[in-house]
């Protein structure tokens, strides 16, 4: 990271202090420690992710277990209001489901869909970007024109239409089983152009460097030059776009589920919870919809702030 060569003594000292210390001392972690906003966001994101991943062990109730639900418990208000009790800290919904537990299980699905669709978008986007940048010519022109046209379409609209078309093409019986995969596909497809454009840009630069020429001269096949020589050098910015894309993907999933074309009620994500809760807004049970909403905003905000910080920290011009 710092350009000056280390003396032998410095090097052995760094080696003695171990890998962990060097990571702690690196530029990236240093700038992280210096940014309170990034630290707070990371803590919030971490707490939410842990709560979601370990929901089956941490949640006070199991909202998926229909046998444990009792209608007698329905619409219990959250703590701080009259008639509240500590077994349902954030209250219950119309079926007596604990809102806090439902949120934790819902975040699990939101995060699962978010991570998977970003991963999917990265695989497609990086692949197409490498191909377009390395091959150039007509391949490049066609692929990038497609990306341009898709970029003018908002991601949510693309995801909505893709989701609608796949649902129309699939037989009804496969629907509920495949709904998560369909969502991941639809959202992933809507996000790939961002990755492709960035990777193509850096590939165009890398392509003309000597190491690529050397590899070509000794007869390494093109696909191998792209994957094992060029790709490691262009993957850096993908990390930043991926983090910001995760926020977008979670929001897209929540929006689609809220619109009623996303995940089925058997697998409620945060968006589905907000949609159901919305029906009870007028009868005064605001907590059923507002708390999942707060969880969603916190999660997306924390991820976006982390992404912003990462972008600034990795940008040498801003240092």
């Amino acid at each position, binding site marked *: 990271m710092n350009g000056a060569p280390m003396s032998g003594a410095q090097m052995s000292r760094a080696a003695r202090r171990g890998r962990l210390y060097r990571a702690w001392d690196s530029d990236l972690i240093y700038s992280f420690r210096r940014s309170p906003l990034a630290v707070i966001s990371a803590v919030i994101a971490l707490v939410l992710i842990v709560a979601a991943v370990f929901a089956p062990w941490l949640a006070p109730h199991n909202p998926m277990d229909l046998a444990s639900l009792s209608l007698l418990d329905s619409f219990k208000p959250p703590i701080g209001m009259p008639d509240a009790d500590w077994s349902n800290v954030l209250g219950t919904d119309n079926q007596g489901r604990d809102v806090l537990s439902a949120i934790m299980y819902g975040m699990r699905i939101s995060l699962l869909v978010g991570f998977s669709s970003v991963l999917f978008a990265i695989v497609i986007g990086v692949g197409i970007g490498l191909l377009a940048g390395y091959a150039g010519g007509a391949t490049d022109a066609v692929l990038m024109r497609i990306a341009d046209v898709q970029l003018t379409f908002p991601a949510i*609209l693309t995801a909505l239409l893709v989701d609608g078309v796949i649902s*129309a093409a699939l037989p009804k019986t496969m629907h509920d089983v495949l709904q998560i995969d369909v969502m991941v596909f639809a959202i992933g497809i809507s996000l790939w152009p961002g990755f492709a454009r960035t990777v193509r840009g850096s590939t165009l630069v890398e392509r003309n460097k000597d190491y690529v020429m050397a590899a070509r001269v000794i007869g390494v096949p093109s696909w191998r030059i792209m994957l094992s020589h060029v790709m490691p050098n262009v993957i850096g910015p993908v990390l930043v776009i991926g983090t910001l894309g995760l926020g977008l993907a979670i929001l897209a999933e*929540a929006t689609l589920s809220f619109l009623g074309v996303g995940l089925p009620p058997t697998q409620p994500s945060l968006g589905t919870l907000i949609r159901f809760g919305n029906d009870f807004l007028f009868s005064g049970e605001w907590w059923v919809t507002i708390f999942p909403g707060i969880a969603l905003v916190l999660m997306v905000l924390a991820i976006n702030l982390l992404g912003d910080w990462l972008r600034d920290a990795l940008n040498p011009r801003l240092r």
Partner: protein
Amino acid sequence: MFSFIVSRILQAIPVLLIVGLISFALFAYVGDPVTIILGQDYTEQQRLALVHQLGLDQPFIVQYGRYLWTALHGDFGISYRLAQPVAGLIRERLPATLELAGTASILAFVVGVPMGVYTGIYRDSWLSRLFMIVSLIGVSLPTFLLGILLILVFAVMLGWLPSFGRGPVVHLGAWWTTGFTTWAGIRCLILPAITLAMFQLTLIMRLVRAEMLEVLRTDYIKFARARGLTSRTINFGHALKNTLVPVITIIGLQFGGLVAFSLVTETVFQWPGMGLLLVQSVAVADIPVMSAYLLLIALLFVVINLIVDLLYYAVDPRLRIGRR
């Protein structure tokens, strides 16, 4: 000028043809129109007759051409869900969406630009800080949550404004309906318009603020001050004018966002517009409506881009001289 417009229109044609191809492919290959129309029981003869009647035995390119031809004449087929012509459904709902989107855009512009100018000039006043906090909330709140919150506060708790629908509408001309003429109609418009305007408003405000900060540092502003011009002339006549080019670009680019968020807003407020129609159609895989919507949106994109290009000319004299 004229040749510029013509060349832009010519450039738009391939884009429209490709979108048309996608929407035709949807129409033709997803779901089987023959079984949808004939139902379960039919003879082979009936099937062949219908296939011929629908032109499905023609080559692909002929079918595509025919599809475009009928679409040009305003015929987009029949909705599976409502069993009515799609063109009629869209015509019925277009005014609602345009009134909502238009009001929201004007609101965003009329409120966002002054807020941006103010926060740009008085960077550190407490009102600027308040505006910045509001804009941070506007950026991070998803549209549907903002709508739900507004309904909760203004419709459920305070009971000031209606929470859904468009209220009474008045017919103007052959097919345009408007909610502007009655007080009840305007009341219905307030919450959805604020919801839809919020994200654009924050965007415009932040952009104008950043551009103002940039422009106010330049030499010609210093010179204008040295000449003793009033600060109003400087701020609005010189500084604001030069911030408008990027603002117009962004507003044009954000048109897609306006379309997407109008889907969400219309669903939250049950606003009877095109967005709600699309969402309901996607939920039951009503392909003719989806493909017609796709075509229409592509057309709107092209028109908006053209308008943005023309606005550059109006706003920035440098472009006019450069092209001559």
